[in-house]
């Protein structure tokens, strides 16, 4: 009774919000993208002070410092700063990712100037009191303790450790491990801030219902004289722990499911194959309709969902396939994952699969950037990785130009079946032996409570 399948109409024009860029007297870079839809303004400051720069033994310092920015300034203590922000209808979120530390807020336009002043105060003159730093350390340690019984976080953390060499910063969580967090202190936090936070390492991005003139005025007033010379980031060595496959089981007694991670060291964000790899990954495991998800979920019903991703960082982040499967089918699920990796390297994907992936990635682009926060985050990624100014205007064309052959070449170049690390958090008593039969190596069984510091 329903009418025949409809044909699409003509696509409407779309332009990513236009950005204006300027540099303040002290050297700080500002990017403004006016979006006059709703009375909202988002401010995102990014600083070249991410976790990748943590020195060995002090993992977690970048994250702790960024978190502590919200705990008070020279002028006002934590409760007063929080109160000032929240009375403006906003809360400031600060944190560190691998390649940047960030401070962000969203506010109504009438309160933009006051909110901007508070954000600038946090960047320039944080308080870093001993009590606050110690409390944040204790909170991170509490999180790590809880992670011992939380399969997803535990699997992510252990996977990083088996993929990367112990000397790589990427082998440990951005927030640090129990041993590294315990030794952090206020002096280290202050020194990190002094060394890394300054005009030369900071970009402030403002998106939403505001004009470039108004942003310029606020930025020049509050951050114009900030010009301290600081270090820029050191690079991470993203070397693999081992060139061959290995299997790891982290025991969780009576677990009804195995939380699985399968993968290896990926490629850096700046790699020339980026677009081909994005399309290849979408077909392999990036989309709901990807090969891995349809196989594991819709054909075999092993899982609620399975997903693959390249984690894009300045150096080579991990490539990982993640899923949670019923314990009894742990080995069977890994076998299907291996088959899919082999299959996408053996033969070209079909024109139909390519069409779906490229049309999805190109079409969904405007849907991704409907909010002021999402536009600010996209501009931040472009700033962090030095993407060209025409990146957003050419993105859809570049995705659409990827061919079946490009996908095959990318799969062969960047998926390494001989170097896969398989990690399962689950019931070791029942899953270790079947996993051994995969002939990827004898499963190494560890325990969730092991701190796992290399000694």
């Amino acid at each position, binding site marked *: 009774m329903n009418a025949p399948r409809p044909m699409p109409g003509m*696509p409407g024009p779309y332009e990513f919000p236009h950005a204006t860029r300027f540099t303040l007297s002290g050297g700080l870079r500002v990017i403004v993208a006016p979006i006059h839809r709703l009375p909202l303004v988002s401010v995102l400051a990014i600083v070249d002070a991410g976790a990748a720069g943590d020195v060995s033994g002090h993992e977690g310092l970048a994250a702790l410092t960024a978190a502590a920015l919200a705990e008070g300034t020279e002028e006002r203590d934590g409760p007063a700063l*929080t109160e000032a922000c929240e009375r403006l209808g906003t809360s400031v979120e600060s944190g560190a990712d691998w390649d940047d530390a960030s401070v962000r807020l969203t506010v109504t336009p009438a309160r933009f100037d006051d909110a901007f002043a508070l954000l600038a105060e946090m960047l320039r003159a944080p308080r870093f009191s001993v009590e606050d730093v110690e*409390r944040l350390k204790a909170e991170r340690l509490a999180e790590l303790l809880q992670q011992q019984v939380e399969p997803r976080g535990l699997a992510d953390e252990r996977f990083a450790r088996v993929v990367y060499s112990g000397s790589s910063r990427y082998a440990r969580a951005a927030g640090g491990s129990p041993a590294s967090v315990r030794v952090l202190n206020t002096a280290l936090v202050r020194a990190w801030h002094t060394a890394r936070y300054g005009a030369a390492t900071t970009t402030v991005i403002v998106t939403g219902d505001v004009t470039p003139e108004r942003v310029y005025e606020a930025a020049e007033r509050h951050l114009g004289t900030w010009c301290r010379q600081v270090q820029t980031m050191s690079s991470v060595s993203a070397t693999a722990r081992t060139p061959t496959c290995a299997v790891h089981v982290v025991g969780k007694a*009576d677990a009804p*499911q195995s939380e699985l991670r399968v993968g290896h060291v990926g490629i850096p964000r700046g790699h020339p194959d980026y677009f081909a790899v994005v399309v290849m990954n979408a077909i392999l495991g990036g989309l709901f309709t990807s090969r891995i998800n349809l196989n594991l979920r819709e054909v075999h*019903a092993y899982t609620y969902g399975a997903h693959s991703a390249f984690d894009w960082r300045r150096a080579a982040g991990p490539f990982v396939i993640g899923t949670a499967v019923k314990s009894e089918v742990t080995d069977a699920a890994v076998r299907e994952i291996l088959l899919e990796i082999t299959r996408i390297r053996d033969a070209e994907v079909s024109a139909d699969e390519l069409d779906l992936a490229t049309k999805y990635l190109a079409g969904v682009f405007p849907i991704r950037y409907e909010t002021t926060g999402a536009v600010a985050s996209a501009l931040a990624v472009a700033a962090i990785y030095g993407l060209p100014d025409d990146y957003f205007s050419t993105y859809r064309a570049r995705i659409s130009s990827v061919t079946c052959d490009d996908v095959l070449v990318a799969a062969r170049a960047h998926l390494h079946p001989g170097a896969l690390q398989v990690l399962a958090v689950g019931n070791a008593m029942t899953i270790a032996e079947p996993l051994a039969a995969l002939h990827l190596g004898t499963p190494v069984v560890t325990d969730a409570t092991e701190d796992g510091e290399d000694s």
Partner: protein
Amino acid sequence: MQIPVDSFHLANGLFVALSEDHSAPVVAVNLWYRVGSANEREGRTGFAHLFEHMLFQGSEHVGANEHFELVQRAGGTLNGSTWLERTNYFETVPSHHLELALWLEADRMGALLPAMTQEKLDTQRDVVMNERRWSVDNQPYGTWWERLPALCFPPTHPFHHSLIGSMDDLAAATLGDVAEFFRMYYTPDNAVLTIAGDFDTATARALVESHFGAIPRGAGRPPLRSMEVPRTIGEWKRAVIDDDVMVPRLFLAFRSPVLGASDYYAGCVCAAILGQRRGSRLYRALVRDREVASDVSAFTWDLAKGADLFVVDATARPGTSAAVLEAAVVAEVDRLHQDGVTADEVERALALLETDYVSSMQAAGDRADAISKFATLLGDPSAVNEQLERYRAVTAAAVNAFARTVLGDDNRASLMYVPRTVPEGQT
């Protein structure tokens, strides 16, 4: 901020809301069906959600998983979700694919059953069992959202039982159940359709009429068991759960006024004062000053019938006992119950609620979902434009009245998770 809203009924009873906005070449299609876990019969807990999975398994003119494929190939996003009193399905697509989304939704509303097979049901049953393991059974504190309503509503109440369902009940579901549930609840007169974003209202109206107009009305639905419950729980119910967790965590719930009631808005402001963000009372006292908790929050579940739940959630810092955690939370709740709040605190809460509400209207999909929600639960899609005023009308006196009637110890249910004790002789 004014969200445009236009609405009408089709002859078959489908309620349609349109919200035209050309700021991005994107359009959202959003359907709410007035059916959720509350409609499940005994022995079929989890069925409403399992049924939601079946709606992605194809319909008369759409193959299994083709719904996902067609929307993704159009460059769109999609999903569905099940809650106690509703189930929703939604797509956001580039605006020139509006008709595709409408056609897909109409095909499964009009003709789902020809596509249903035993094999698809068995597969989705296993997928849902894995979803249960993933989100409930293999997650620390994962059972809280089925245990808490069970504690707050009596066993005969439609909100009492588990939304995700028991493994036994999921195993028992049949194709006959699928057909019965579909005929009973998935009818145009039991649904709200919202379209938000870049479209032309006259064109969209015609498209809705042509795709949905011929779908027949339902034959009527069995009345829900009564949702009415006394305003308070009448006592302080307590449950202590031994779980595979490292630190205690407390959920403290209160029956509270339903979504849309005038004192519901006072409850939202009260929750923001008590436990939202770092400036809230619980955060300042328990996380910052006393360091007995690492995480605290307070929120409402936003139920619209019978009673809503006002919930406080606090996770202990390692070394803090369950007793100390509970005493600390209760001290703050008691103080609020007895002494109330200040006008300053209300002002802070309103400023935060306002930014959050405006922010939640940015994406077409979120706007459409909010309009469907107000149309379904309050019978008025344009309530989307009245929420800010209703928050702003809340005074300290209103919050104090809420706290006095809702937060007392005759209206509490506490669910305390504690680390599992290892039996003696084991290590």
